[in-house]
């Protein structure tokens, strides 16, 4: 018995070690962002919020933030819609060339972003679609669709296939069944897909660097700052983005939890 307990503690301890490893760079980043000196070493010689003031007052950073936000929202909406449509098609239909269709849907993440960015730039510049924010959106959607599709397809797999046909039998046409059965059922995964694709787009910098040209998203700005202006500005940006997205995630969690507690009885009944 006590051996069991010991093993359980060891395993939990290992999990904490793993978490610690994951958080080391994030903690360092936070600490460095308050460095008074440009080339910080630990321990810091003092405390300063100067880098935060700098990034807020330097036009390129807020501009890039705005670009990232815009691109992120549009990418999330488009790729979630396409991902949903593809997941539903996969769920409901069997057709010739379906394997190819699924490969189209799932292959992009297996291609390194460096190459995807390169290829996109070469191709989009041939057709004069390069160097604007929409170029970033076009490319990011390609990359994000698989994430959205995977999430929604997983949810659809949990659906009782009889539900949709039951709706048809009750006289609903396909569109109505979609609206009243499929969409409500997949709604949690749709929200998850929106959040995830937005996050992926928001953090992706290589594709955006290649196809964006003069239009910089936030991570591309970070890349530029990192390459040239080595300074804790990068850490300050990292911390701000982290804090904002964390607050959003926590907010979403709280919303989900309060909603879930309402529906808990059904879930509990299933168990």
């Amino acid at each position, binding site marked *: 018995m006590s051996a069991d307990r010991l093993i359980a503690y060891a395993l939990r301890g290992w999990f904490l070690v793993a978490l610690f490893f994951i958080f080391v760079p994030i903690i360092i980043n936070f600490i460095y962002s308050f460095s008074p*000196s*440009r*080339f910080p*070493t630990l321990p810091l010689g003092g405390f300063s919020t100067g880098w935060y003031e700098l990034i807020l*007052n*330097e*036009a*390129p950073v807020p501009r890039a933030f705005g670009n990232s936000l815009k691109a992120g929202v549009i990418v999330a909406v488009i790729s979630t819609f396409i991902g949903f449509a593809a997941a539903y098609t996969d769920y409901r239909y069997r057709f010739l060339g379906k394997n190819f269709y699924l490969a189209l849907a799932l292959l992009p993440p297996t291609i390194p972003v460096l190459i995807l960015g390169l290829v996109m*730039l*070469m191709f989009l*510049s*041939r*057709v*004069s*679609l*390069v*160097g*604007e*924010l*929409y170029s970033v*959106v*076009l490319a990011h959607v390609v990359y994000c669709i698989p994430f959205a599709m995977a999430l929604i397809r997983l949810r659809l797999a949990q659906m009782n296939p009889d539900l949709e046909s039951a709706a048809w039998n009750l006289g609903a046409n396909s569109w109505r069944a979609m609206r009243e059965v499929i969409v409500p059922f997949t709604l949690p995964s749709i929200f998850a897909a929106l959040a995830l694709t937005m996050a992926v787009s928001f953090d992706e910098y290589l594709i955006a660097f290649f196809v964006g*040209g*003069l239009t910089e998203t936030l991570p591309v700005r970070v890349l*530029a*700052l*990192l*390459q*040239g*202006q*080595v*300074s804790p500005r990068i850490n300050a940006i990292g911390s701000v983005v982290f804090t904002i997205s964390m607050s959003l995630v926590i907010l979403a969690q709280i919303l989900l939890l309060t909603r879930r507690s309402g529906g808990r009885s059904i879930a509990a009944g299933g168990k």
Partner: protein
Amino acid sequence: MTARKADKKPTWRLTRRKFLKGSAAAAALIAASSATRRVAWSEENTLSYLCWPGHGAPEVVEPFEQANNVKIIPKEYVGGEAMMALINQSDPGTYDVVLSDREYIVMMRDAGLIDEMDPNDYAFDDFWPEFQKMPGHWLNGKLYSVVLDFGYLGVVHNTDVISEKEASSYKVLWDPKLTGKVGQFDWYLPSMGNLSQYNGNKSPFDIDDAAFAKLRDTVFSLKPQVAGYHGIPDIFNALKNGDALAYQGIGDWITILLSAEGYPVTTTIPDEGGIQWTESLSLSTDGKKQDLAKKFIQYLTAPEGQVRVALKSSYWGSIPNKKGWTLMNDIKPNEATILRHRFDQRNVMDEYADGKITLRQLPEQQSIDDWSEVWNEYKNL
């Protein structure tokens, strides 16, 4: 204008319209967004600037932006080849003003990427004489680029471990106490250039094949000393945290910032000679805002712009405008001392006069490919 654009574009390039016809599904979306985007672009008063990191930073361009009610949109690159790659991969006219290293000016001219400039537009009379008719900027008597700033490349070293006396020859890089501690700036041109000087080549980039073979051996023999191949942020980190104690192929533009923060690093130009880098401004052929672009170059090469460029936060550089020196000595005397821009003591122009400094240039007798191939093999050893 249109004709020139047409024949410069590879024939493979489809027109936007043709392409959109082909992909009906995406058409509506793209057309809509590109239309609105174009309107927004022309309404916004902007000037695009292809440059090394930091040249488009607010502390450099803000006065110009305010005076002309315009926004500078910088696109930053590291290394001349990266610049050529970017400019060749972009639509003509994407960049209004191009900042490049001297050696690429002739290539850009040959590719029809930059315009001839009128010397009377710029204050060459205020420049040090050495910079008034600088080779590489004037091609066949025509001006294609105005020099903005410059600096020297030699041995960068940690002064706690390597004294300036030791660093007075590139030989120090092979010193046993630097084994595994020599950093390499990951750009073949300056890094190999300095080593070519170590081999005794007076013009380090204009060497025959025998000398080039010897340079290859010299480069490869440095491998056991190498800590790593570094980009700019890696160099700062390595010098700061002791992962690298010496470099060749970089200079003051790195060490001034670090020593200002108290790190024991400095640049020494060895007796075998150092290399000079220059950054210069050109007008893009297809730029839509030629007048504004010209004004911007005038601003950057006038005294105030010069001081701001010299002391920009990404890296400091020496400046060619004597009136810029005067202004710096007036308003930023400490910085003028650090940059050795004082008239009353030994300054950067004296080193120039000593004949220790060679202009950096592209390989003369071999191709870029040959040189970078050696560098790639070196990295893979």
